[in-house]
C-alpha cells in the first residue's frame, strides 16, 4: 500500500474535473481541497464511488471577519488511507447549505448539530431544525464567534453573593480575616509585580 500515490491520485482526480481554489497536502495521509459551494455534492459523490465511503466529520468554522462560514467535510477510505478535507465558504448572513444526506446518510446528526451550533440551514435534511443538545435555548447559536458566554450567563442568571463571614468553631479564633488579608496582599503583588 503506497500512501504517497494515494495523495497524488486524489490530487489529479479532483483537480482535473473540479474547480479547486486551493489544494494543500498536509501529509501522506491527508489532503485538503477548497472548492465552490456548488461543487461539493458532485465531488463527494465521486469520492464515494472511488472508495471514500466513510464520512468522518462534518462541521463548520465561523470566519466572522470575512462574514463567511466555512463548511468542512472529511471523508475517509479504509483501503487507500487518506483523509480528504473538503472545505467551502458560504454566506454568513443567510447560511444555507444543501444537505448531503442522499450521499452520506450518517451526516444527519452532524448537520443537526451544525444547525444548532452555527444556525446553518440544511434543506434536504428533515430533522435539521430539531434541537439536539441545547434545551430551551433562546439566544444566537453558541459556536458563532460573536456569542459571548460570559455576557449570556450574566444576563441569564442572578449574581450570587458570597458570604465571607465564618463562625468561630469550638472557641478557636477564626483565621478568616488573616486569610483575606493574605489574599489581598498576593493580589497586590500580582498586579504590581514582585520587586
Amino acid at each position, binding site marked *: 500500500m503506497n500512501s504517497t500515490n494515494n495523495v497524488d491520485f486524489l490530487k489529479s482526480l479532483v483537480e482535473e474535473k473540479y474547480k479547486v481554489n486551493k489544494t494543500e497536502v498536509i501529509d501522506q495521509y491527508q489532503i485538503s481541497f477548497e472548492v465552490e459551494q456548488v461543487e461539493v455534492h458532485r465531488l463527494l459523490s465521486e469520492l464515494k464511488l472511488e472508495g471514500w465511503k466513510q464520512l468522518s466529520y462534518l462541521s463548520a*468554522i465561523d470566519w466572522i471577519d470575512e462574514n463567511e462560514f466555512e463548511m468542512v467535510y472529511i471523508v475517509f477510505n479504509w483501503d487507500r488511507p487518506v*483523509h480528504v478535507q473538503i472545505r467551502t465558504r458560504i454566506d454568513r448572513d443567510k447560511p444555507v447549505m444543501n444537505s448531503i444526506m442522499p450521499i452520506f446518510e450518517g451526516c444527519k446528526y452532524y448537520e443537526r448539530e451544525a444547525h444548532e451550533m452555527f444556525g446553518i440551514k440544511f434543506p434536504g435534511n428533515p430533522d435539521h431544525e430539531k434541537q439536539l443538545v441545547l434545551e430551551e435555548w433562546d439566544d444566537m447559536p453558541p459556536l458563532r464567534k460573536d456569542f459571548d*458566554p460570559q455576557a449570556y450567563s450574566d444576563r441569564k442568571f442572578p449574581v450570587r453573593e458570597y458570604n465571607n463571614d465564618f463562625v468561630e468553631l469550638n472557641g478557636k479564633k477564626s483565621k478568616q480575616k488573616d486569610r483575606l488579608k493574605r489574599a489581598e496582599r498576593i493580589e497586590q503583588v500580582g498586579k504590581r509585580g514582585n520587586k
Partner: protein
Amino acid sequence: MRELKLFLGPQHPGMHGNASVHMFVEGDIIVRSYLLPGMLHRGFEKGMERHSWVNNLALIPRVCVVEPDINEMAYAMGAEKLAGIEVPERAHWIRMIILELARISIHMMAYGGLGSPTGNYTLMYHAHADRNSILDIFEQISGHRIYHQYIVPGGVRKDLPVGIEKDIHAFLDDLESRYTEYRDLGIENPTLVKRIKDTIMLPESVVWELGVTGVGMRSAVNKEYDIRKVMPYALYDQVEFEVPVSDYSDARCRVDIKLKEVVQSIGIIRQCLAKMPEGPVRVPMAQGQSMRWTLPKGHVYSVVESSRGEFGYYMVSNGGTHPYRIGVRGASYPQGLLGIEKYLPGTRIDDAALWVDTMGVCSPEIDR
C-alpha cells in the same frame, strides 16, 4: 396496544454515562427511540476557543471521561503537525504504553459493563478491579488516576518513574494468567451466552450507512480496519500485533473482539518496554513563555484509534495564541445518535442497555 414512553438513563444502572435513551414501547418491544445526549457540560469546543493552546491541555482529557488519553494524543499530534515538531523516540514508546494501558482499562470497563445489565455482577467487580490496577500504574506515572494530562505536544510531560516496568510487567502477567478465567466468567458462560448470542446484530451495510468504526466495523466487515495498521501513528509500524476481525457481528462477537484486543495490547506493551531506548522524552513546545505559544496557520485533522473507533480532532489555527476552532469527532457519534434512532427499535427493552454497552457509546464525546 398503548404506547408508553420509558427512559434509560441518565440515572440507570445499565446506562453508561450521562446520556438518556428515550424509548417508546409497545409491550416490551421498542418502537421508536432517540438519544438525548445533552446532560453533560456541553461547550468543550467553545471553551477550547477561549483558552490558549497550552491551557487547553487541562480541558481536553475531559472530553471522554473513561478514556482520556486518546484526547491528549489526538490534540498533541494535531499541534505537532501544525507546528512541525519532531517528537523524540522514547516519547513515542511511552505514549504507546499509555495508550495501550488505557485501551486495556476501557475494554475491561466495557466487559464489566456487560455484567451489570445481565445480572452477572462477579464479572463487573473483577473487571473493575483490574481497571483499578491500571489506574494505580497511571497514578505512579503521571500523578493522576483518571485525567493524566501526560501526553503533551512535543512528547510526554516527564519520564517514567524508576522501576515502573516491574509493576507493569507484574500487572500484565497477572492479567494474562487470568485471561481464560475471564472468558469463562463472561462470554463462555452459558447463561450469558444465551443472552448475548445472535442478538443485537450489526450487519455490514449498517456499518457503512452509519459510519461506524472501530470494534463494530471490524466485527462486521472482516478486514483489519484499524487506524494503527492502515495509517500508523507514533511507532505502531514497529511493533507486531494482530487485529482481531470477524464477519458476524452479534453482541457476543463484539465483546469477544474486545477481549482479543486486550491480549494484543498486552503484547504491544511488552514489546514497547523491551524496545524503548533511553533518551529525552520531550522537546520544548516553544522558545520563551509557553503561555504565548503560537501555532502557524492551518487546518489539520488528527486521528487515533480509540477503543470505540476513529477518534479525531479537527484543529484550525489562525496563527494566534488561541485555537480558532477545535472540533471533536467522537468515535461513538454515528452509532450513538443515528444508530439508536434507526436500529434500536425492534429490540426489547432489556436489550437497550446491552446495545449501548456492546456498540460502545460514550456520551461525553457526543455532547462535547
